């Protein structure tokens, strides 16, 4: 009620398989919301998070990076899979409009379609640029702002995971 606690979702991954919050339990989940037409925020965040995961080395094996679309009408599983090809650690998730809306609510994510004449479809979807860290039990553990540096995020993740005996 008062915080994220244990967010739930019911979506499909970029291979078309149904997934829920239980699918990834047992691994730390690194969750980012975005959309594939995003020009700045998502590419920057995905590059940064990929670099952080590289830097973490073996520790990264305990993390499951997830990229949840806030633009399900355009971001089909195929579109997501293609978009995430440069970021192979990530699994893309999408779903029906209602399912994505429910996931947004669970994570307290802001995203709203906005007129954008520079986009071929005429709109973009400004969104919360927060990266969420969920524990292996699926509970909210921390979140990182878009302004965080690679080094800061690497240190934070090492610290949090070290408390649970990560390498």
């Amino acid at each position, binding site marked *: 009620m008062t*915080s994220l606690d244990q967010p739930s979702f019911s979506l499909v991954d970029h291979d078309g398989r149904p997934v829920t919050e239980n699918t990834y339990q047992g691994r730390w989940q690194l969750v980012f919301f975005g959309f594939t037409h995003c020009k700045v925020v998502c590419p920057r965040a995905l590059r940064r998070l990929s670099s952080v995961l590289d830097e973490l080395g073996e520790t990264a094996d305990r993390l499951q990076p997830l990229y949840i679309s806030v633009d399900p009408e355009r971001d089909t599983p195929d579109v997501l899979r293609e978009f995430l090809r440069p970021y192979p650690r990530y699994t893309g998730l999408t779903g029906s409009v209602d399912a994505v809306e429910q996931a947004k609510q669970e994570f307290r994510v802001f995203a709203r379609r906005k007129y954008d004449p520079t986009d071929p479809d005429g709109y973009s979807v400004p969104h919360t640029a927060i990266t969420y860290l969920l524990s292996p039990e699926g509970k909210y553990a921390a979140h990182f702002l878009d302004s965080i540096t690679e080094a800061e995020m690497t240190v934070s993740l090492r610290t949090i995971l070290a408390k649970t005996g990560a390498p």
Partner: protein
Amino acid sequence: MTEKLLTAEQIGHLRHFDNLSRQQTNDWSLMQGKATGQDDFGGYRFQLAYMTYALAVTHLHRLPAAPGLFQPTMQRLIDKILLPEVWMYWRDTSQGGAPFNAHLSDSLHEEWDPVVRDNIMYSAYVQSMALLHDHLFDSDRYAAPGSLALEHWSFFWGGEAKRFEYDRETLNDHIYWQMVQNGYLGVACEPNCVFQICNQPAILGFRLHDLITGGNRADEVTAGYERAWADFGKLDENGHYSMLVLEDSKTVLPNAAPAPWADAWCGTLMNMWNRDFVHANYPRQVAGFLRPGPDDTLSVTPSPPMEAAGRQSDNDSCDFGWVTVWASEMGDERTLEGLLAHADRFMQPTWRDGGLYYPRNDTVTDDDGNVTLVEPMAGNVLLGYARLNVPDGMWGLYNSRRDSSRSDQPVLTAVERDIDVSQAEVVDGVLYARLQRTRAVPGEGTVTISHVAGRGRWTVLADEQPVARIDGITVTPEPGPFAKTVHINGDQVVLSCTENPHTFTFRQDR
């Protein structure tokens, strides 16, 4: 050292705040406005909150060595804002039905928990008041689970008790995630209505939480706020603060009247994190609101009643009071003095139990056209706040640091009700406290000083004359009129005060 002692009027306002905080449960004497059901800007929650803010700026900027004067009052004010009489309006207001959200009322339901969704004009005050207390007094009182409990139970209706438990962490967290979820535009007051004004206290709360915990949510939220409001404009097309955004239609409503209270309230609070912007716009904005009066007095033309659905809503808008606070925050001495001079001349300043206030008066002007309208919010709180504030007082509070040095310095940790404190500060390790006993209210006439007894040798002076020496926990009085003034009780020094004001100095012998 502080240049000025508190004036009799400033002390009177502090005492009035204290007197109101001491009223018995659900005794809201002098605080009732003309609106029904705590529905307007003069409701109890606003009076309780802005008394707390006024106490905070006074403590920080004017009487920093007197936590014992402020802390109990703040705690009582927080106790009061948790009372259901203050927040039960939300059970009804949460259901919508107002002109701005009538179309949503089918999707809304009765909500008893007054902080769980929307209602930032209540939740942010509870949040910021609790965090102010813990920040200023280096306390974790409101970090305890359930320390901010909202409970209602009636013998006669409603079934089982409604009880909602929060603390400074859970409440701050809850408001923060609402802010995130709304793209940092803000949290709604009434359903669908995101007011700029009412999100400023939440930002103060985030900042205070950062100061206590070392986080950076306030910077995050203010940066997001700037981005979100860039789509709508913090200022409307006439240069006044935009009033609110309707969430569903993304329509921004300007300060169309323009209403003085809206600019003044928003400007006062936004100054804490956006000082250059607020100061740059102030002269032009305020100029249109001020009305010259006799003998250099200034007044504010009250804004017209709000109109909607063919009806007029005659609420407490507090134009005069808010503009006065705004002038004090902007450091506009000439305007502040002119407005306070008007209040003293036309608004019946009244002393009651040693406290100073301006009683409610629903008559807008006297026969000569001078503004006489006084809402309880203005008369109890805002005019006192303005008189106690310092230039950029809220900015200074927002940019303050948690003061852990108090544990090493002599401070007034308990002040009996019948003591007036017009100075309390530590300069170069020396405590200066100007104290006077009043017979206007009951009390024991004592002040407790901590961090002196048991901490070496000290000389105590009254008006620069030695009156006692303290060595460890032994006090040796000097012969004379102050021979019975200084006592040791355990590890505390207790001063017995008289009806004559004296400046006491505690200087450690090196």
